[in-house]
């Protein structure tokens, strides 16, 4: 074991040696190193978060045909630092009638629920917090804490807009949790494990995005809903309820919600990479070739993972800045009448075909899985088209053809 193929354990062993040579009990040294590891992971995530502020602002500027921050530092790179200084020195206001303790816990819990996800995020084959055998459920559990934080913020602010935002957020998250949980079972079936690292390793030959593109699409939609980003940003709809659940928060307390949201989006980009694009690996077996073995170096794997996660994050931003907000009844109908049945069909299809086709040669297996997804997608679109036509016909009926039709602006 050298620094280059197992950096975390290498540093850990070295530090344990140093601490025990200072006559520290081995158990205490282990606990101390766990704490150090957690702090380093959080610092890494939060430093990345500062960078994400810049990325988000630059990308939204591109989508809206602007330049974005470009005054402070080269390409505006120091802008996030200026943002943070501004947030920290702003006045901290607690509204009259707010429930002080709950009001102050909420932003911390919101950021915590995101950072908890980093415990199971494998950056490389040897750089990860913990390899849980219930990793996928852990993601859902951390999301539940995020929902709780938003309810606490909305209720304790003692503000009607904040409360409305919290209500919308709860109905949103509880509904979209269901297709997400169902669709997370697809990678579980394909990889035969719920461990996040196991799912990554199972994709070393073939990405699950190719085996089940529909699952990827449903995961993307329910992830965006879980994040509360446009078109599902009803919880903070600026034009209707001002800023929703965080309307009363100022300074760095607002900053925690903002930082949490950005990091959450990036983390879900990372999970998309892990579940469907092979995470840190997934080079289709290329890494076994002699001149490409450097792909197995943990630092290269971490770079590959961050690049894939950035792609997922970019797709989420692309949707956010291109699609307008949808109405709450449409949002719920879309979930319950479309996404849930579709995800159930995809799940059953994956479960059955995976058992039937697994005995066939691998190219036929991949073709069968991919083809069945395309077939389901095609049938879905045909059903939607027939339904849309029926609705249009029903809408046209009351107007008799003799009457002159009113010009619709």
């Amino acid at each position, binding site marked *: 074991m050298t620094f280059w193929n197992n950096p975390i354990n290498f540093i850990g062993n070295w530090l344990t040696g140093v601490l025990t040579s200072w006559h520290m009990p081995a158990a205490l040294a282990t606990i101390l190193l766990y704490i150090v590891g957690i702090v380093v992971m959080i610092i890494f995530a939060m430093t990345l978060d500062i960078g994400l502020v810049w990325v988000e602002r630059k990308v939204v500027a591109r989508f809206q045909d602007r330049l974005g921050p470009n005054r402070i530092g080269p390409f505006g790179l120091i802008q996030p630092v200026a943002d943070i200084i501004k947030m920290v020195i702003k006045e901290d206001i607690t509204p009259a009638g707010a429930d002080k303790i*709950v009001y102050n816990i909420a932003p911390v819990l919101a950021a915590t629920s995101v950072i908890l996800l980093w415990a199971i995020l494998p950056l490389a084959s040897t750089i990860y917090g913990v390899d*849980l*055998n*219930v990793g996928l459920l852990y993601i859902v559990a951390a999301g539940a804490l995020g*929902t709780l934080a938003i*309810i606490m913020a909305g209720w304790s602010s003692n503000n009607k807009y904040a409360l409305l935002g919290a209500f919308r957020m709860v109905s949103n998250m509880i509904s979209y949790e269901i297709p997400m949980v169902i669709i997370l079972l697809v990678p579980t079936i394909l990889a035969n494990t*719920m461990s996040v690292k196991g799912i990554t390793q199972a994709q070393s030959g073939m990405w699950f995005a190719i085996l089940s593109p529909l699952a990827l699409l449903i995961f993307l939609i329910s992830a965006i809903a879980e994040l509360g980003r446009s078109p599902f940003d009803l919880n903070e709809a600026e034009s209707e309820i001002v800023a929703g659940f965080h309307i009363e928060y100022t300074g760095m307390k607002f900053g925690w919600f903002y930082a949490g949201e950005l990091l959450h989006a990036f983390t879900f980009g990372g999970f998309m990479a892990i579940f469907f694009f092979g995470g840190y690996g997934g080079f289709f077996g290329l890494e076994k070739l002699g001149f490409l073995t450097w792909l197995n170096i943990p630092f290269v794997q971490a770079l590959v993972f961050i690049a894939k996660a950035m792609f997922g994050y970019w797709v989420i931003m692309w949707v956010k800045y291109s699609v307008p907000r949808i109405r709450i009844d449409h949002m719920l109908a879309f979930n319950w009448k479309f996404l849930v049945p579709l995800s159930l069909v995809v799940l059953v299809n994956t479960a059955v075909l995976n058992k039937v086709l697994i005995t066939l040669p691998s190219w036929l297996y991949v073709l069968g899985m991919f083809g069945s997804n395309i077939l389901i997608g095609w049938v879905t679109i045909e059903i939607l088209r027939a339904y849309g036509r029926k609705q249009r016909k029903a809408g046209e009926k009351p107007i008799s053809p003799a009457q002159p039709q009113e010009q619709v602006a």
Partner: protein
Amino acid sequence: MTAEQIIFLLTGVLVLGSAFMVVTVRNLLHAALWLVASLFGVAVLYAILQANFLAVVQVVIYIGAIAILFIFAVMLTRRQLLESGRQTRSSWWIPALLGLLILIGLVSLILSVPGLDRTASAMPVGLDTVQALGTALVSPDAYVLPFEVASVLMLAALVGAVYVASVDKK
């Protein structure tokens, strides 16, 4: 005392303390939040016992669904969140006595289990607890019948909820 015992004691204090707060605080929403803390403590206990699946499911179901629905219902239905009435009935000693009896019964039952003072053997290396649980839930000589009966019950609850909530279209 090992680190595990310290964590166990702290978690026990958290669970019992927040459970006590649930029934004593006057603000209904605070009571719901204390309930969340108590349920979270139970999840930590499961994690200490290396029951990963139960720990995570405890958070998903009890905090993610049930507690949040409690809070939702409280926020939607109550205009006044502060309870001002008396918190005990005049016959409070009857349930207290019953509770005490149940406690004595449970403690004596636990004490009568043979080999109580032995430490548990370590988990076999490489045992996938989730896989073992899944196999047990669908194998005929384990829990397949209770599992199926429970799912029928869930289905009945679902159908009932849809029937109650459906608008009568006449």
